[in-house]
């Protein structure tokens, strides 16, 4: 038996098998993939696996109707990196949150880790959480410049022009980027209806 014939004998049954089997519809495949990704979020999965799962939801399933319910418990995860990514992805999914669920997000604003506060502010933008405005305003006086900048940007999205007087002192901030973000936020807020 020549090499060509032997190859054909191997490949042909395989090809027939593939051709004969009914391919799953694209929706079913996507649903199964989404389910598999959501399964990686369940405790006690390792941090790297949970973070990768959250990135996959962010990039491939931003319209998922089931992911938010699986992500909300991660806001109370003992690992800071998991909480930070979870709040960012929630902002992208834009679910409709109950007041107690929103309180879990707002609670992260009191973290001693500036990076966690920054990510929570970014998440709150997508959540359009106007109820969180009173918790955001004190952050305009935060010692970390990145927190101040994100607070400006988040207020520009979720608030209205009534917060402009709270932003104005930042126009004299010693950090140029803070002044720029405060200016930008004030300009946006003043143009809102």
């Amino acid at each position, binding site marked *: 038996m020549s090499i060509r014939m032997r190859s054909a004998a191997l490949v042909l049954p395989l090809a027939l098998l593939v051709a004969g089997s009914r391919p799953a519809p694209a929706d079913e495949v996507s649903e199964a993939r989404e389910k598999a990704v959501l399964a990686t979020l369940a405790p006690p999965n390792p941090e790297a696996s949970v973070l990768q799962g959250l990135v996959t939801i962010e990039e491939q399933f931003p319209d998922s109707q089931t992911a938010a319910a699986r992500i909300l418990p991660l806001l109370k995860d003992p690992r800071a990196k998991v909480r930070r990514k979870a709040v960012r992805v929630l902002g992208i999914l834009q679910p409709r949150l109950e007041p107690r669920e929103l309180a879990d997000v707002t609670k992260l604003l009191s973290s001693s880790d500036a990076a966690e506060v920054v990510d929570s502010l970014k998440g709150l933008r997508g959540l*359009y959480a106007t109820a969180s405005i009173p918790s955001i305003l004190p952050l305009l006086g935060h010692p970390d410049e990145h927190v101040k900048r994100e607070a400006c940007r988040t207020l*520009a999205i979720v608030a209205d022009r009534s917060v402009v007087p709270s932003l104005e002192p930042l126009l004299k901030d010693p950090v140029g980027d803070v002044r720029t973000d405060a200016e930008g936020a004030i300009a946006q807020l003043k143009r809102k209806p």
Partner: protein
Amino acid sequence: MSRLRPAALSALLLALAGCGSSNIAYTPSVAPAASTRRVALKVVDNRLPKEGGREPALVGLQRSAVGIKAGIKESSPESVANLVRSAAEDGLGQAGIGIDAGARTTLTAQVLGFWMDWSGYDFLSGVAYKGTITVEYTLQDASGRTIWKGLVMTEEHAKTASKEVIFGKALKRLAARTTRLLKGPDFPALP
């Protein structure tokens, strides 16, 4: 001379790629849902000064291999507002809401963000970009009183710096999320 030709061609291709001669396009859904309700639609370009507010044709930043930034631009300063209008109209149509300049209620779409930038580098897949569109909707009655507000934010990730690819997808999602928002339980009944 023959050695110079490929170099000249590469330089020309790079220059053309940097020019951003093409524009982002939005193709609306085939058929809108039957509409019985009507609003007047107003689109306001209210982006941050440094992210297109000062220079309306600017929609993002592209970075070279050594990190040098270059602006990504549309050919017209009205492009962003027009694209968002098309996507918003599509989203409204799919929610069964028609556009009528004489309607008693006005829906204002404030474009708060329309920006793409480098989002990281992966050794295997190369550079990655992220494009974000943020639109705040405000519904006002004939007296100018605000009766409802909502926000749509879309983020699109891609392994390309193509504004057409990134914003093309982001605009589709903007339309779909607008429909979802306007069909939601918080959106008021229209006269």
